[in-house]
């Protein structure tokens, strides 16, 4: 693992809401080109961890680095100074210059999908992907309004069409995004995330609500896009078959804290993981 570049480095991240510690002292590394999974029972803090990485929340304490550059760094301050119950409180300094909003993090090259699909409901499939290209377009509001950047617009449209073609979504391009079947909506959300030209793709339960057939296809699809776009994938998932099949490395958390890490085979046989999922027997 050490020979590869680390794309995402999460160090001692703690997220505390009032008295509730949603993520506790989480550290993990996501190496370039791999598929890394974050698993855990419901309410373990997986999505909160994602939200700390993508800038939706600012973690109470800890450090997140992307490609070696610090992205978020914080320590308990303000009200949390007294209330903080996590660890490593004195290890970090707060740097307001690097607490970016989600859009800036996306601009750095991290794209995500959502657990409960969040497509733009009044837009067509085509427009959903096209709009995600807005961020990288070389234009300003005047050149866009007066059509002096029409070339850029044409490029965006062509790229969108190409992207939809690759994802087998082109035939639906003029339909409303929300009128698609569930599985295709998930795929469209991934296509939309890819349109922001990310290096790292965060997938929040991409297989939720899918049948085994669809889940298997999704697994192949994730590997395919990883290879095609040279992506690194970091995903949250509940379908163990999928996770075990496609992940290179797995982190398991429960009640916000890491309980195990390792390659799929080790995780499958790890007693703590089995206990967390099935409950500890009474004896």
């Amino acid at each position, binding site marked *: 693992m050490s020979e590869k570049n680390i794309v995402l480095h999460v160090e001692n991240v703690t997220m505390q809401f009032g008295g509730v510690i949603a993520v506790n002292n989480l550290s993990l590394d996501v190496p370039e080109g791999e598929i890394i999974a974050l698993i855990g029972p419901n309410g373990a803090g997986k999505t909160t961890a994602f939200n700390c990485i993508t800038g939706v929340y600012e973690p109470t304490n800890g450090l997140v680095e992307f490609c070696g550059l610090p992205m978020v760094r914080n320590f308990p301050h303000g009200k949390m100074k007294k209330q903080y119950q996590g660890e490593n409180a004195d290890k970090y300094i707060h740097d307001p210059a690097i607490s970016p909003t989600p859009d800036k993090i996306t601009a750095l090259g991290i794209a995500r999908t*959502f657990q409960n699909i969040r497509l733009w409901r009044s837009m067509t499939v085509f427009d959903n992907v096209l709009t995600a290209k807005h961020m990288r377009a070389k234009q300003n509001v005047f050149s866009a309004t007066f059509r002096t950047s029409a070339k850029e617009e044409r490029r965006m449209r062509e790229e969108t069409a190409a992207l939809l073609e690759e994802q087998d979504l082109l035939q639906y391009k003029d339909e409303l995004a929300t009128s698609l079947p569930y599985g295709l909506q998930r795929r469209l959300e991934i296509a939309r995330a890819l349109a922001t030209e990310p290096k790292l793709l965060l997938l929040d339960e991409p297989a939720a609500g899918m049948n085994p057939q669809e889940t298997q296809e999704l697994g192949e699809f994730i590997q395919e896009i990883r290879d095609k776009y040279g992506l690194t994938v970091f995903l949250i998932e509940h379908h163990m078959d999928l996770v075990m099949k496609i992940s290179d490395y797995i982190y398991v958390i429960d009640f916000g804290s890491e309980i195990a890490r390792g390659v799929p085979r080790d995780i499958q046989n790890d007693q703590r993981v089995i206990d967390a999922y099935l409950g500890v027997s009474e004896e």
Partner: protein
Amino acid sequence: MSSFVQANLPYLLAGISVGGQYALIAIGYTMVYGILRLINFAHGDVFMVAGLVMVYASASMPMYLSIPLVLVATVALGFTIERVAYKPLRSAPRMSVMISAIGVSYLLQNCALYFTGGLAQMYPTIPWLSNSVTIGGATTKMVTIVTPILTVALVFALVLFIQKTKIGMAMRAVSRDFETSQLMGIKINSVISMTFVIGCFLAAVGSLLYFTNYPSVIPTSGAMPGLKAFVAAVFGGIGSIPGAVIGAFLIGICENIIKGLGSNWTIFSDAFTFVLLIIVLLVKPTGIFGEKATDKV
């Protein structure tokens, strides 16, 4: 110091009085918002209609009949508005309900314009309330003293009602979680109607007190007190009754003190309320007593 108080006493008294009247309106806003998450833009106009009903009622019947009639008519109006204009939109986006409220406000103002023929209607003199009294060298009407006392008494009764009765408990539950309370068998429609009934009753009382201080009622009389009462509700943390009352007194006092600063500043006595609103929204958007709400991603 004492000369300053002496000079400003009339304004201070007027402020406390107006504050109490705003408080009575603000409770209607804050309770409706707490339950429906709706800024009931029509509430100020309901308040104005209560004033007009008093004008017309007192012209044809004695005071001891007109006052109860005003209370009943206002409550009936509030109940009808909720049933006709808000209930059908229960599952619609919040913006539609707010637009409906603006529509009702427009309708009430235009109806008032039609019935009054655009003329200011002389507000009747309510005996005893309009009597003059002198406090600390400042002459004022009895209503100035009655208002804060009555307001505090009514708020106390209301808080007791919400804390102790079954329907009060249902109200608290609905404001906490609309859907779940519905699933738990609370008849939300009657809870919501009750909220409007209480809100409009207090607005009617407020109108009796408020218009006693003014010579006449016009169709737009309700707009500004309505907005100010709403600001008071936001200031205190929308959904919180004590918050609304404290906010209302503060706004009433401040605007009257500004009026006392001199004629060049009078124009800002209304605008000040909104400056206060914006400061509160920026510093603590949920108001002094409000609870923090977060969006789930």
